[in-house]
């Protein structure tokens, strides 16, 4: 470590010296009264060399840029256009009829509103309490920002958008979550994302903590804990579909013994969502686990030894040494899963077909169903809103939560 630091200092000093020398050389040249130099004869070699130097960088990245444009940017623009159109079969092929924002309108205030946002019911006193609490919290958050000395235009706009976004989502949730309401695909997706990630992280961290202990068989269990991640999601979905089948699945005797012979997970919206969440948590906990094992094992042992000598207990060591050490990795891990979780489709599609009703449909499945019905415009509109949601929560996480968590270290 000391050697590395010394090398870095040396490198820095040399670069300063080099810059200093270069500056002095230029000054010297300017000071000198130099005779005009005779023009050099034209040399093809030099021209080609210069051109190659100049173009090389651009040309080397060109294939990648073209590939990215074709694979990412153009489809994004094309799908934006499709989201503003209606697909229609026409002689010899198809045509896309421009319908403006109709596909978006349908999702928010039209025939797809109940499906997308949920079934709204009049607010209950509980709804008002929850919504009021969130509004007050957001107002405090905004006020605190405005009262500090580091207010910027972009920061203010970002926070206003954040406040409006979170306020809107809360409004939607309190009007659909209880009192006879029904969750739409937006809320169901948020449920999968946040509940899923919460349990995946807690379980992943617990298992990682367990397997970094010097316990017998820990290597064996590390492999076992990783297995769910290696199975194809559709395979996992079918497996859980069988497991949750109380009439002919492998656990039928257990269900019968528990007196649950007439029970079905999928008859009830929350039962079906729970089944999907369990499958999702089972599938993705290993990802959290393996990265957290690496993070735990890479933390320096000296502080832990010192704390142990000083008489700190296990919780104090975790809280003050281990947790800060793994926090940056944890934040990145959660961000990756946050982005990934929004795209959940295979589990609800195979396990419940999105049912009962539309209770387990995610946004991706909503888009998929629209696409399957050749409502390409509607499908693209859902996909675009999903993109905005992922970006919104991704930026929220990066700018507020992750940044603050790392700053507090």
């Amino acid at each position, binding site marked *: 470590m000391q050697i590395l630091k010394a090398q870095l200092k040396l490198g820095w000093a040399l670069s300063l010296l080099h810059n200093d020398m270069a500056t002095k050389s230029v000054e010297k040249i300017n000071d000198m009264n130099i005779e005009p130099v005779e023009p050099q004869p034209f040399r093809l070699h030099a021209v080609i060399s210069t051109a190659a130097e100049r173009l090389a960088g651009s040309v080397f990245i060109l294939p990648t840029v073209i590939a990215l444009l074709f694979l990412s940017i153009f489809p994004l623009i094309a799908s934006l256009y499709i989201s503003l159109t209606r697909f229609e*079969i026409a002689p010899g092929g198809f045509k896309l009829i421009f319908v403006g924002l109709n596909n978006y309108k349908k999702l928010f205030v039209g*025939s797809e509103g109940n499906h997308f946002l949920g079934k709204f019911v009049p607010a209950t006193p509980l709804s008002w309490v929850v919504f009021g609490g969130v509004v007050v919290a957001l107002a405090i958050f905004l006020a605190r920002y405005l009262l500090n000395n580091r207010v910027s235009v972009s920061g203010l706009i970002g926070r206003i958008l954040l406040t409006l976004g979170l306020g809107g989502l809360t409004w939607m949730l309190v009007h659909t979550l209880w009192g006879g309401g029904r969750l739409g695909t937006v809320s169901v997706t948020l449920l999968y994302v946040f509940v899923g990630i919460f349990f995946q992280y807690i379980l992943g961290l617990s298992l990682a903590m367990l397997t970094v202990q010097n316990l017998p068989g820990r290597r064996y269990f590390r492999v076992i804990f990783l297995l769910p991640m290696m199975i194809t999601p559709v395979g996992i979905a079918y497996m859980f579909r069988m497991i949750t089948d109380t009439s002919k699945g492998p656990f039928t005797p257990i269900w019968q013994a528990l007196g649950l012979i007439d029970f079905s997970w999928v*008859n009830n919206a929350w039962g079906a969502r729970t089944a999907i969440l369990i499958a999702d948590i089972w599938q993705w906990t290993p990802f959290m686990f393996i990265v957290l094992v690496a993070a735990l094992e890479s933390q320096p042992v000296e502080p832990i030894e010192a704390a142990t000598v000083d008489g700190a207990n296990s919780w104090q060591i975790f809280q003050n040494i281990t947790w800060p050490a793994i926090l940056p990795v944890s934040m990145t891990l959660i961000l990756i899963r946050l982005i990934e979780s929004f795209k959940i489709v295979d589990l609800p599609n195979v396990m419940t077909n999105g049912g009962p009703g539309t209770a387990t449909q995610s946004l991706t499945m909503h888009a998929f169903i629209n696409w399957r019905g*050749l409502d390409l415009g509607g499908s693209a509109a859902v996909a675009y809103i999903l993109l905005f949601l992922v970006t919104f929560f991704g930026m929220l996480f990066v700018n507020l939560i992750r940044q603050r968590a790392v700053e507090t270290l």
Partner: protein
Amino acid sequence: MNSRNMLFKILSLMVVFGVLITACGAPATEAPLATEAPETEAPAATEAPATEEPATEETGKIYDGVTIDILTFVGPQVAEPLQRRGPDFTALTGATVNIITVPNSELYQKVLTDAVSGTNAYDGYLFAPSWIVDFAPAGLIEDLTPYVEADEALEWNDVAPFFRDFNSYDGKVYSIPLDGDMHMVYYRIDSLEEAGLEPPKTWDDYLNVAKTLNGKDLNGDGEPDYGSCISKAPAQQSYWWIWSIAAPYIQSQGNTQGAFFNTKDMTPLVNNDGFKRALEVYKETGLYGPPDETNQGVGDSRGLFLAGRCALTMDWGDIGPLAIDPANSKVIDKTGALINPGSTEVLDWDTGRLVPCDATTCPYAIDGVNHAPFASFGGWAGAVNAAVSQQEKDATYAFFSYMAQPAQSNADVVVGATGYNPFRISQFENLQAWTDAGFSEVAATQYLDGIENSLNSPNMVADLRIPSNQKYIQVELDRILSEYIAGDLTTDEAAQNIYDAWEAITEEIGRDAQLTFYKGTIGAK
């Protein structure tokens, strides 16, 4: 060092440019491959086993060297006969047959994207004939009339008139039926007799029988069984079951009256007491069914009935032949088949209320019960892609014709595993084929009578055949129905939501055009 560096950069630039130029120049030579590629990209490609007599120029067969790719839904039924008879067809004609399968819910979209995108990876499609109204006007599937007229072996006039008509559009034949579909109710003869119950004539009777037998041990294994098994999973078959129940409440004046839309103004016939009663009946059957029926497809309910676990079920003609298969059935000679139950009350279209049946309101009633059997789906039928080469069109038509010819189809329709049900007049008349397959004479007669009575009913309801029918039925109706079954919507809300969703589609496509189509398909004036 600098020279070598520069040389390396120049060489690298040349390589990069070379790759780019090659890539840009490639399409001209690679284009033909693009049409062949989807064969490997298809979700579940199943190639028919290679024939022992390979198609070579020496054999001199009519389609030597031709390969045809047929897209249909994932088997084993329906695709199985195509796969089994593919090698026989190859031996006869030299054409190699590939059967590519996709999930049923994705079939429409797969066919359409293949055709409209110009991919044309498939030479033929085995799909729902109600879809030809989308594909034929757009010129995506071939007019098969000249083929049919020149094809004596097909024996087109032996095909029941309803199926001939259902596979035609604007007077032209666009698909060849390999299957005839009609919903019927199946019941356990022994269980009903034991309980002193009559086979259900109305949907109220059906609920009564189901309620009485629910929880009884029907197969002698000591476990309680179910009164009714009708699948209710989303994106499966719910949208057909509901119309089988709704039809006798809505249509009573003959098959030109229509059961889906009002022929005056194309408004959906869903926001009325008849359809609401059908919703209630469908939902109530779930009370007497398996606990996870809301997540079951027809394969599950069919399996339960064959295992002797259900007193009643509604299905296409498949149950009849499957019930006599000793390998899979515990209900051999215990299965009765019936024309779909009807209603003693029918919809007054003007008021939206149910009125009792009499000579005026129910002119086709049998013993005071208005039956309106529903030819749901219409049977699997083969259509030919209009964009493939003439030789491929000919070979594809020849294959569908071969499958539909009496020599093959008469053998296929008596086997439950094929998923094909009778569609030829001779198949209803020739009892011998059914008894040879293992039916008792009584069972065969009852089974065929059930289908024939439905087909011959003057009040039969044909499946919806207007443009975007898939969107009306398999997208909007399916979604709202599953929300209703899940308890997310009341009966009134469900009826209103379906009405609104269908109206939105009609408005989008054009009310007048849709009305003209609809009236044309049911023969209304």
